[in-house]
Every structure is written in structure tokens, then in C-alpha cells.
């Protein structure tokens, strides 16, 4: 195994700790939600240490609420910093969304009109976060369910501008792009084509679920199913354009056996390596 090489990784689930520590696959890495490790001690942190000693780690936050019109919560940010300092993750990421407002935290990633004022606020919040952590973060494109009016920017332009202003990178969730394009009626391929390639530091792949009432017209980013075929196609299109990047299989509901997730991960890995192969042959 090449130390530090990250091809395809898996979201870390507590029920898979022992297998994750014991498995062997070149380029494997793991991603964890820091919120699940904001504890004083105990087996969770002990397992994360074990995994981290073996594999590169990514910390993927869900609760910083970067798109709220409020400064990042200092307590939350300092707990995040403590984890970043302790585990020295290869990647740190958050979402282009908000979840906390007026003292209440909502475990969701909520939308907002992409106005100039929102850009100012979110760029400031990303900047504060990066200053506190002492490193750049990646910002992930959201899954959208509401066609909000009043945007000043397309999402791709908004993300590109955020990159330009803050030096952050992008985490491109291909499933989110597919779900949003489906729900709001635009072309996911064109969306991905418009993202600035150099800024993309990580890719997410996940499964979605049709809404019980609206079916295919309203896809929900549940992470409860294998990666769908159109998402695999978009992933290939993306990496053919931008080249290989660390890619993650996310599964948070209806979690199958570790081996089944590894098989999905191996497919993402194979597609990355297939990209690299022709270049190696040319050289």
C-alpha cells in the first residue's frame, strides 16, 4: 500500500469498525462525521484511532451550518478543531447549506436563495472556519427539493465564486447533483461540466430513493440504496474531464454487510484506475 494514496473510500459505520480496520485494499480510506466523535473518550474515539493509524481519514461535517446568516458556532468549531488537530485528516469538508437557526439545530441540509448577500456571508463563514482550523476545507453541493426563486447565481457559479474568494475546495456529490437536477428540472451533466475542475478535491457517490408520493419526480438523497446507474455514468463523465480524485461511497441507511459496500467501493476504484491506465501506457 502506498502511504497516503486515496482512491476510493467508504463512509465509516460503527458496525463495521473491526472489518474496516482489518481489511486490505490499495487506496482505501474512510470518512467519518465529526459530530459522532465529539465526545471526551470511549470506544468511538479508540476505534477512530485504530482506523486512522491504518488508513487516510476524511472528516465530513454536517452541523456547521455555513449558509446560516450567523457566525459558525464557536463551541462547535472548537470541538471540530480538536478532532482535526488530533486525527490530522487528509480531507475536511462541510456543506453548502444551513441547519442551525435561532438556537435550534435541525438535522438536515437546508436551502437558501443564492444571492450576493448570501455569498458574502457564506464566504465569511468559510473563511472563519478555515482560519480556526488552520487549513482549507471542501464545500459540498447540496441536494435540492425546492425550486427557490431569487437566485443571483447559478449554483456552479456560486461555488466557483466561493472557491475564488476563500481558497476552499469543492466536494462534488454526484448523487446530489443528479437528485437536484432531477427535482428542479435541469441537466446534471451540464451542471457537473460547469464546476471548476482544479477546485474539486473529493467526489461523493450515494444512492437515492423516489418519494413515496411523487415517485421519480421527487428523488430523495437517502443514502439508503446502492449508487444508481445514471450516477455511475455521471461519475465517469466527471472523472474523464477532471481526472482521478478521492471518491467515497456513502451509505447511511439500510446498511448492508461490509463486503457489499467494499464491492461498490471497488467499482468506483476500478473506474478511477481505468482512467489512469491509458496515461501510464502512453508514458
Amino acid at each position, binding site marked *: 500500500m502506498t502511504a497516503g494514496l486515496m482512491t476510493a473510500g467508504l463512509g465509516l459505520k460503527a458496525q463495521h469498525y473491526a472489518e474496516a480496520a482489518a481489511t486490505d485494499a490499495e487506496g482505501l480510506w474512510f470518512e467519518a462525521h465529526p*459530530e*459522532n466523535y*465529539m*465526545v*471526551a*473518550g*470511549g*470506544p*468511538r*474515539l*479508540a476505534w477512530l484511532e485504530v482506523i486512522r493509524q491504518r488508513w487516510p481519514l476524511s472528516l465530513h461535517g454536517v*452541523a456547521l*451550518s455555513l449558509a*446560516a*446568516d*450567523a457566525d459558525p*458556532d464557536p463551541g*462547535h468549531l472548537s*470541538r471540530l478543531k480538536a478532532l482535526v488537530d488530533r486525527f490530522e485528516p487528509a480531507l475536511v469538508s462541510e456543506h453548502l447549506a*444551513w*441547519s*442551525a*437557526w*435561532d*438556537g*435550534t*439545530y*435541525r*438535522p*438536515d441540509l*437546508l*436551502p*437558501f*436563495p443564492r*444571492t450576493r*448577500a*448570501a455569498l458574502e*456571508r457564506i464566504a465569511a463563514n468559510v473563511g472563519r472556519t478555515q482560519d480556526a482550523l488552520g487549513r482549507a476545507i471542501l464545500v459540498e453541493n447540496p441536494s435540492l*427539493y*425546492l*425550486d*427557490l*426563486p*431569487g437566485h443571483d447565481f447559478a449554483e456552479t457559479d456560486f461555488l466557483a465564486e466561493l472557491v475564488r474568494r476563500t481558497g476552499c475546495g469543492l466536494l462534488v456529490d454526484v448523487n446530489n447533483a443528479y437528485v437536484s437536477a432531477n*427535482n428542479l428540472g435541469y441537466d446534471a451533466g451540464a451542471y457537473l461540466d460547469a464546476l471548476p475542475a482544479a477546485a474539486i478535491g473529493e467526489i461523493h457517490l450515494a444512492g437515492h430513493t423516489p*418519494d413515496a*408520493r*411523487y415517485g421519480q419526480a*421527487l428523488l*430523495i438523497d437517502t443514502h439508503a440504496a446502492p449508487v444508481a446507474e445514471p450516477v455511475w455514468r455521471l461519475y465517469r463523465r466527471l472523472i474523464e474531464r477532471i481526472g482521478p480524485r478521492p471518491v467515497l461511497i456513502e451509505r447511511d441507511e439500510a446498511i448492508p454487510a461490509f463486503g457489499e459496500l467494499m464491492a461498490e467501493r471497488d467499482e468506483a476504484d476500478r473506474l478511477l484506475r481505468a482512467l489512469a491506465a491509458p496515461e501510464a501506457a502512453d508514458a
Partner: protein
Amino acid sequence: MPEPLSELGRFQQAFATALAGDAAALAPFGLEAEAAAAGLSVHRNTVARGTIDALATSFPTVRRLVGEAWFEAAARAFIAERPPRERALIDYGGDFPDFLAAFEPAADLPYLAGVARLDRLWLEAHVAADAPAWTPAEAAAVAPEALFDLRPPLHPSARTAWFEALAVPTLWTLCRPPAAEPDAIELAARPEGVLLVRPHGAVEALVLDRASWSLLDACARGVRLGEAADTALAADPGADLPALLLRLVEAGAFSAPPAP
């Protein structure tokens, strides 16, 4: 006077109101209730699911005893009264035991708030700071006459509870997942205490008699072991103190005491 909200802040306020049920709140932002309905229901569902699941994860024994539907209804009532302020949802639900104690539909389940309290204490023990426990060998190395002057603090993961009327700890121990679901709920009408502690990897539960609980409770207040022993004997004059102390030390209840 608070600063007037920015446009983004007003949107967030309106969205929060819409999530709470008033879809018309987004009309000033050009989103009519009808157009917003489907998308808002996705967000409402995600928020509710995430919060309820967090409580279900933190209170697995409560959930098993009352069943999924009852638990979900109680969780929804609790969330409406006390929505999460905590961004790490493992911290959410500290008030759930007190809520259940006053929850009218739980009035005929006198053990339920106690079970919730033990689920919560288990979680606190599970995530408490790591520290070595005072070992039986270390305790045995102390001269008997010096022992009673020590003030052994409880281990950082140690949590204790005492139930005067019902043997809730035994019920909780038998019912807590992943233990197999018991055929019948056995609840004795006798006083009982419990120590939850994580000296190594996993949280262990030790059912306590009155003397043991009194001794731990006294040690938690930082008194000399001699004084704690007097408290234990006052609670139960027949208590076998050396055996009782050894059992607690073997369970990892204490951190090594500082020199007197």
C-alpha cells in the same frame, strides 16, 4: 434593540416557520405554499426522522419497552417541547427522562422515566473520558490502617443511580438491547441501585445494595473512605464492608486516590 435581520436571516426565519407547519411563510420570498408543499415535506421528514432516530439510538431500552409507535409519539411530543439545541445529537435528550416522568400517557408505566435515566447514564459512561481504574492489586497494596484515610474519586465514566421503590436497574439490565428480548417484564417492588462504569472498552452495569450505593455516593462527594464506610454501615449495619469494597474496586468504580 436586536439588529434587524438581513435578507438571508429573514429567509431562514421564514423557512423555520414553514418547517414548523406554516407553508405560507415563504410567500414573501416568491414561494407559494402549494409549490413549496412537496419539497417542504421532504425537509420536515428529514428533520423529524433525524431527531427521532437520535433519541431512539440514545434510549434503546425505552424504545424496546414501549414499542416503536409509542416511542415515536413520545419522541415527537418531546421534540415539539424541547427541539435540539445540540449540534452533536449524541448530546441531545438529556431532558428526555424528566419529560417522560411528567408525560401523561406514561403515567401507568412508573418505571419508564427510570429506564430512560439509565439509558442516558449508560451513554454518559460510554463517552466519558478515558482513565485507568484503581485496581484491586493497587488497593491491596495499601496498608489497612492507611486505607480509610484515602479519598478515592469515582472513575470519570462512573454513573450511579438509586431507585427507592422499584428495582428498575434489574429490569433495565434484562431489557437493554442487544440482550435478547425478555418474554415478560419483571419488576420487583424493592429498592435497588446501579453503578454504570467503563474501566476498559465497554460499559458494565453492577446492581447495588443500599450500603454499596451509599459508599459510592459518599466517595463521589470526596469524603475519606473511613467516612464513606460509616455512611455505608449506617445504611446497612450488617454490610460486609471489605467484600463490598472489593466488589466495587473490581468493577473499576474508582480512580486511584491521591496520597492522603
